[in-house]
């Protein structure tokens, strides 16, 4: 059925019978509804500047409205301004409309926009009111894909084409309109043609458009054109109805562009027709959304050589593997195209492999699967953190194929890559030839170790190397081989190299056959695990044999960065060494420094003495240097005298010959054990002891005070725990003599005075009298004072009370709130006399107290 025609204009003769706007002529059987639609769609107002155009050249400049509205009755119309009407009023226009129930068929496949400038259009009223139906297919106008391509190439805003395409696509989906403003309707028609050519043909045929509307705000078509001078009367509420593309001012809406749209824009109008003809092979006819179109379009683009973006690739592969792929020939052709043109990642290769298998192209599927594994290996080799772990190969044939590819890659890979590949092969269950592995491992480790002479040759690869070494003995063998070579060529650097190896990389059994490597291996292990140092020393000494002297270098490597042992370390190391072991001089100095050290606590003194005992007897006594050996001997002698002395007098004789200051252990022994030893032993000659207390003070004021403190503590117990012992009385006599004849330092003086005061005021009078008698030969004045005070205390009720309070019962009933003291409590330890009591002994007044002196 050919096109029916309608002419609408303001004329004197037409269907209405009256002059004015009316249908001048129409074809037979045109319905009233069609006429009303044509009248509505072709309404025209010229731009204000051209309203009074009447000369042909002026009229030619007027915008032309080509309208196309698809539908059950498709309508295409060309509206042209003609100036005055029959009543001489301006504003007249002539609309020539074609309608058809099957536009595509009747137009011979032309798109509506291709009727722009078509020779089919008339602009002259007919003489009669009946128009014939169009007896031939309308000819196409000048708009071709090529001419549109040229137009875009020269347009300053050609880059906006993707946005325009996107807007047109959105307009189709969302009942919106795209408003295009440019300087002429010819340019607008080119834009529309670009959209129509590029959009999928079914969509393009659904596009309605009008190349010119004076008041675009009234338009409801998908694409609307207008000129800059017209009022774009979009009210505030209409902003979301229109996508405004003002190509004069360069205004475009901010639309996210779908990848399909970007692809179509890259294809360009010039190639659009061929592009969509290729795409025909891939289309099912059920495409509706952009996602539906994207895959087939990408396939067509690939076939035509248009580059794809990553998003296009994703869409293409998703489509090829989706629920509605193209038929087998097109499917495999698309797979081969994309496989040939693009570097694909693992998942893409896998997906294409599935698609190829679906298309029954087994050879391609197999190849793609190989490439998947190749890709896996590559990603693994490159250290891609996103690489998936391999699946274990169970098929022997496939495993052999993959092993071959793996070996190729393993041979070429750098160290890190090769190590990663080893991990991959282990997880995949590959079984590469052992000899090949050992050889390549030796090469790799040689490269790594050869490139770095100090430090950590495998920096950054420790974990990889350790893991691979754990999985592959061949790697360890290769490494041992390399180390063996280096042991010969770079002997001096071997220890550092081994120290640089990651822990756990080698096992002892790996180097068991190489004595030199083994020693360095053991030392390196001890370096990382210091608790193994002594055991390693013993192992190394044993490895070296009994005749090889112990050298300082080994000690330094086992106890870095030290230059001596602590007493505890020496106590562990010395027994571990064979007694007959010869020592180099440096090692002897190490031992000497270990033997003569400051001692800060009793445990250290104990360790020292135990160590000294180990070295006291031959053959170990020959290990230390002479001075150290002398220190050992003197210290042990002092200890023996401390142990053997029966009386304090005998013990104090050790003070007559003090060890030299350079032997701290011997002096520490005296300081820590002499005060107690003196206090616990009976005194035969208090006057002699008093004299040696002076020597003790010269050795150490602290030691002397420690001794006096012990005496004072014992004196404080008298009365509560029984009478004073003779030993205590002897020491008090010595202390009183010391006080009377040697002017002790302030703190010692305070201690002695406080002790005697306590005895005077708190001891039972009888005991006080005993003390007085003991003191009388060495400090008679103090003895007098004690006796006088004892007498006073006996004769007064206060004295009785005091006696009672001094008794255990009285002490037990007193509380701190009474101002009394408890056994062992602060008051008991406080030797300060009452305020009324004289603090200065009668014999020799004490010196003024020094600040900080102990009470």
């Amino acid at each position, binding site marked *: 059925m050919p096109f029916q025609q309608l002419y609408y204009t303001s004329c004197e003769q037409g269907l*209405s019978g009256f*002059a*004015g*706007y*009316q249908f001048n002529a129409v074809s037979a059987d045109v319905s009233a509804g069609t006429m009303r639609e044509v009248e*509505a769609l072709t309404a025209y107002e010229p731009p204000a500047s051209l309203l009074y155009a009447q000369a042909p050249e002026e009229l030619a400049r007027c915008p032309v409205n080509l309208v196309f509205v698809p539908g059950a009755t498709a309508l295409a119309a060309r509206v042209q301004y003609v100036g005055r009407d029959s009543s001489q*009023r301006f504003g*007249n226009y002539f609309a020539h409309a074609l309608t058809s129930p099957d536009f595509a068929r009747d137009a011979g496949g032309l798109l509506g926009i291709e009727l722009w400038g078509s020779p089919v259009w008339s602009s002259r009223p007919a003489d009669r009111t009946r128009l014939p139906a169009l007896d031939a297919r309308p000819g196409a106008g000048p708009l071709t894909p090529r001419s549109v391509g040229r137009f875009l190439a020269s347009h300053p805003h050609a880059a906006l084409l993707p946005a325009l395409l996107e807007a047109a696509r959105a307009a189709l989906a969302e*009942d919106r309109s795209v408003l295009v403003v440019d300087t002429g309707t010819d340019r607008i028609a080119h834009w529309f043609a670009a959209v129509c050519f590029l959009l999928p043909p079914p969509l393009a045929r659904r596009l309605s458009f009008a190349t010119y509307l004076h008041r675009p705000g009234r338009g*409801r078509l998908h694409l609307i054109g207008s000129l800059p001078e017209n009022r774009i009367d979009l009210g505030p509420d209409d902003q979301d109805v229109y996508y405004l593309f003002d190509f004069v001012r360069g205004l475009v809406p901010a639309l996210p562009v779908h990848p399909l749209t970007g692809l179509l824009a890259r294809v360009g109008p010039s190639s659009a027709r061929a592009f969509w003809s290729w795409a025909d092979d891939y289309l099912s006819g059920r495409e509706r959304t952009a996602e539906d179109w994207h895959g087939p379009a990408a396939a067509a683009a690939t076939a035509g050589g248009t580059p794809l973006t990553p998003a296009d690739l994703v869409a293409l592969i998703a489509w090829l593997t989706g629920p509605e792929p193209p038929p087998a020939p097109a499917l495999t052709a698309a797979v081969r195209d994309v496989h040939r043109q693009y570097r694909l990642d693992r998942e893409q290769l896998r997906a294409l492999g599935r698609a190829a298998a679906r298309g029954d192209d087994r050879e391609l599927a197999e190849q793609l699967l190989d490439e998947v594994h190749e890709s896996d290996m590559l990603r693994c080799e490159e250290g891609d953190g996103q690489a998936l772990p391999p699946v274990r190969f169970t098929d022997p044939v496939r495993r052999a194929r993959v092993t071959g590819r793996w070996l190729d890659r393993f041979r070429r890979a750098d160290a890190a890559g090769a190590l990663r590949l080893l991990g991959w092969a282990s997880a995949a269950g590959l079984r590469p030839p052992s000899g090949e592995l050992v050889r390549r491992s030796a090469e790799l480790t040689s490269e790594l170790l050869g490139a770095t002479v100090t430090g950590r040759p495998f920096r950054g690869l420790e974990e990889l190397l350790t893991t691979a070494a754990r999985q592959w003995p061949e790697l360890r063998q290769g490494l041992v081989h390399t180390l063996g070579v280096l042991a010969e060529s770079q002997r001096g650097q071997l220890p550092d190299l081994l120290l640089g190896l990651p822990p756990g990389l080698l096992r002892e059994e790996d180097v068991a056959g190489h004595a030199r490597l083994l020693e360095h291996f053991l030392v390196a292990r001890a370096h990382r695990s210091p608790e193994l140092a002594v055991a390693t020393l013993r192992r190394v000494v044993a490895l070296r044999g009994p005749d090889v002297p112990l050298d300082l270098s080994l000690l330094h490597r086992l106890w870095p960065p030290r230059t001596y042992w602590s007493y505890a370390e020496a106590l562990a190391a010395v027994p571990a060494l064979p007694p007959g072991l010869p020592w180099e001089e440096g090692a002897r100095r190490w031992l000497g420094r270990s033997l003569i050290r400051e001692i800060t606590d009793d445990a250290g003194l104990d360790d020292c003495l135990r160590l000294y005992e180990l070295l006291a007897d031959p053959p170990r006594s020959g290990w230390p240097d002479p001075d150290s050996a002398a220190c050992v001997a003197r210290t042990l002698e002092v200890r023996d005298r401390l142990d053997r002395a029966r009386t304090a007098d005998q013990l104090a004789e050790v003070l007559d010959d003090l060890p030299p200051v350079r032997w701290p252990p011997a002096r520490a022994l005296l300081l820590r054990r002499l005060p107690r030893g003196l206090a616990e032993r009976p005194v035969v000659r208090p006057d002699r002891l008093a004299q040696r207390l002076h020597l003790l003070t010269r050795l150490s004021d602290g030691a002397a005070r420690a001794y006096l403190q012990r005496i004072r503590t014992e004196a404080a117990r008298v009365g509560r725990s029984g009478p004073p012992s003779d030993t205590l009385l002897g020491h008090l006599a010595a202390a009183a003599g010391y006080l009377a004849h040697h002017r002790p330092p302030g703190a010692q003086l305070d201690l002695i005075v406080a002790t005697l005061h306590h005895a005077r005021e708190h001891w039972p009078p009888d005991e006080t009298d005993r003390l007085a008698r003991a003191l009388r030969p060495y400090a008679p004045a103090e003895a007098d004072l004690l006796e006088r005070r004892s007498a006073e205390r006996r004769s007064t009720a206060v004295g009785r009370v005091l006696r009672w309070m001094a008794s255990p019962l009285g002490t037990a009933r007193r509380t701190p709130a009474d101002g009394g003291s408890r056994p062992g409590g602060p008051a008991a330890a406080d030797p300060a006399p009452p305020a009324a009591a004289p603090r200065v002994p009668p014999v020799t007044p004490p010196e003024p107290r020094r600040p900080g002196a102990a009470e």
Partner: protein
Amino acid sequence: MAAGLACPYCYESFTAREIWFRCSGRPGRTGRRCAFERDPVLAERTGRRGDVGPAFRADGRKSSAVCPGCEGDTTYRICPVCRSTLPVQFGAVGHRLIAMVGAKASGKTVYMTVLLHELMNRVGAGLGTALMASDDATIRRFGSDYEEQLYRHGRLFHGTRTAAANDGRVEPLVFRFSRSRGRLYRSRPQHSVLSFFDTAGEDFNSRENVELNTRYLASADGVILVLDPLQMPGARPLARPGTVLPGSEGVDEPVNVLSRVTNMLMARQQGASGRITTPLAVVFAKLDAFWDTFDPGSPLRSHPPAGDRFDTADSLDVHEEVRRLLREWEGVRIDQDLENHYRRYRYFGVSALGAGPTPDALVAPTGIQPYRVADPLLWLLSEFGAVPRRGRG
């Protein structure tokens, strides 16, 4: 539907209670905000497809309502039929719908433009009235499409688009007419909403075309019928020499236009007398072309008396004078038709421009000098009681 109000945009009738509201889209008291969306009814009836707040039904007699969606207050009252936003105080003040009809090229659009311009300016000031556009569209359209074209550029309008060419819709211009009404010691303004819709002459060339405007005409409170004497065979020879005459070929005669309008109105409404009750102002335009033929004492050679009231006596004088001219212009059938079918009608003679346009469809170099353009509307308004009149009749 109980009649009472008519939408000034779609001319559909409804009661005040039936007025709907539209959510403002601002956050309500609960903090919720209604999403804007396309209103399909609004789009279909008016062509406005933009996203707007949701419409909802509430008691339209009140000035505001609470949106059920966001619980926000809104004062946007909308027509329940076309969903257009109604003028402020619509329903609380009087409203009048004025239809402008006439044959093609009779000068309806020019006359309406000059009439409104005069009411906004000179005539309005004399009468103590004010006319203001009632909505944004009217402000924009009257300013740029009408007033600017005629007054600033001096261009006459091209033919008005037919209703069919406008998707079967008309786009009335809606104004707020205010007049101070004195009462002893104080005066208070009295407001009316006036809705004007212009029609294309072609819309009255056939009954089918007239039907497209049926709803609008049937709901109109007053009709201004503009007739061009130059289209009347008896008047054309009397026109001043040099007057640009409209083409006569195929031109429908004014009496035919009147007949079609009358038929449509009669089908919709009749008074007890069997005559149409809608007041009809029959305006003969372009009188400047005939001034030379009028008697010196003709009321059509003088201006209406000044004052703030509609002068009934002067209007009746004009009415009779035009009736006399009709006989001269071979328009007796018009008078007969009116007498037989209309209970209230009156003749007017006006000249919107004061001088004929140039052959290039431009305003004459002497400028726009309107003559008696306000009389028809003032008569209609006086009939509605919106303008006081002097004298009876």
